[in-house]
């Protein structure tokens, strides 16, 4: 079994995994944010939040003490987001 160095593990978590988590959060937020009076809050606010969400996931992965825990947190966030989307689509 290939054992990755900590640098490579952190690169994978801060790179692809942090991006995936941010994209899933972007897709999840329309189901969580109310559409508001103009019927656009659930569309516009996730798009505005995307760069900030990615920055948060990226820097969290960069400065976390335990990279395995960071990977688990981001994977959990992704799974929870996918769950919310699946639940919302099932209700439509």
């Amino acid at each position, binding site marked *: 079994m290939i054992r990755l160095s900590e640098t490579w593990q952190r690169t994978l978590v801060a790179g692809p995994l942090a991006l995936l988590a941010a*994209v899933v959060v*972007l*897709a*999840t*937020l*329309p*189901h969580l944010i109310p559409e*508001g*009076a*103009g*019927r*656009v*809050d*659930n*569309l*516009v*606010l*996730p*798009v*505005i939040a*995307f*760069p*900030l969400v*990615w*920055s948060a996931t*990226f*820097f969290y992965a*960069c*400065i976390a003490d335990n990279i395995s825990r960071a990977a688990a947190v981001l994977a959990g966030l992704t799974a929870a987001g996918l769950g919310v*989307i699946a639940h919302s689509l099932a209700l439509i």
Partner: protein
Amino acid sequence: MSFLDQKKTKRLFAIHGWSGIALGVLLYVIVLTGAVAVFAHEIGVWSVGGAANDKGLTQPVDRIIRGLADKVDPKYRDDVGAYTVESGALSVFFHTHETKPNGDIGDRGVRFLVDPATGSVLSRAEGWSSDIYGQDQASALKRFLIDLHVQLYLPSPWGLILTGILGLAMMVAATSGLIMHRHILKDIFVAPRPGNLLLHARDRHVLAGTWGLPFAFLLAFTGSFLSFAFTIGMPIVSMSAFGGDKMLVGEILGGHAQTEDKTPAVVTNLDAVLADGQQRAGSAPTYIHVGHWGRADAKVGVWFEPPAGDLGFLQLGFNGVSGAFEGQKPRVGSKPSFGATASSVLTALHYGLFAGLLSKIIWLSLGLASCYVILTGMVMWFTRRREDPAWAPWTRMVPAIGYGLPLAMLVSAHFYFQAIGRSDTATWTPWGFALATLAVIAAAVAMSDRVELTRRLVLATAISAGLLPLARMMAGGRSWGEAVAIGEPVVVSIDLLLLIAAAALTWHWKGSPQPQWLRRRLAAAAQPEPAE
């Protein structure tokens, strides 16, 4: 300020450096062209020599638009947009929304350019809006600079995605710079230490970076939002929440009427609507749009310059048949909302147009300061590695891009003026930029002496800037006397700025260190002749 241990600080330092060096060149292109693009309107006015008729939409346009509507295919009367271009001509675009061959929704129709004083049609073009506006010759220089900033002159959506990624990289550089800062208050007043090149570059980088941090983060965040909004953000959101129905999402964002009434009806008097709106807004109208022309459900939207105390452009809505005022319309959606306000504020903060000339000058200055931070960061990176043979040749990259980019932008303007009046101005303007870029790269590869390369690029930039006002006038542009006579200050102002820049660069060139070959020759000449 830093709350990180040494290991994490070191990690962030590496991220800060690599994010800057890997994307620094493109970041510099984005930031410098963005700083210049704040004055895009003024550059457009300058490039066409100003407008003899600058009344815009405050002059009667109803009769002209109504007359043109009778001449177009009824299917293109779905939407009509009108505004005045930099030359003073009235642009009227009758169009409908259709699906392009690539699946995107686009505007297809007929665009007229009209003399608003006489009503005579100056030009007529039919097709997709992107093709029509892309071939507009008079605004080619302005559009090229904006396109370079917005999407690096790459095809959509790839250019936008790349500039969005660059925005994220700038956010990373700014945030990591802030987090690992140990003495942020002290560094606001740090004095660059003379002597040691690395320390001097570091102090200048820290000083400019500390002052510019909030601005750099703001621009990076808002730019990233704008680049990703319609390339990644909206497609993902519409796929997740609306099953990918782009047309429905477009309708919701546009705030269009949900109930249709195709009963034929006469469109209200647009001059009366413009006058009414101007009185309500207290600022000049910039754009008028009529949706569902000739139908009972017609709507008129009028955009105004940001009123005093407001950040964004103001949009007022009117009934398209009765002309009755229906209220202020948000940037997105049908009613004011938090999302619409947030979107407007972020867009206004990115463009920097909200306080007229003052905010434009501040945005330009802070943009140039960010360029300085990028360049000094590169100087530090290469200075640390100057003993490494693999990195040594790359030290020439700093002057090559630092002076090369402004030089290439000036050369593109020279090409624009040489081609103006022809049908291929929009083609030659980017070619001028590309050829100048290739020449700078060739010079950077050929010259091993960084000092000599810098001197030559400074001189070339000075000559290019100094000759540009002359090139503009020789291409048929208005002289200073003519520009003053029509009350247009922009033409003279930009010409003067170019001449001042040329003089400053010439002064810098004269005072800069001499290249090695000249130093050797002078040293040889100073040696005493051997006694015979």
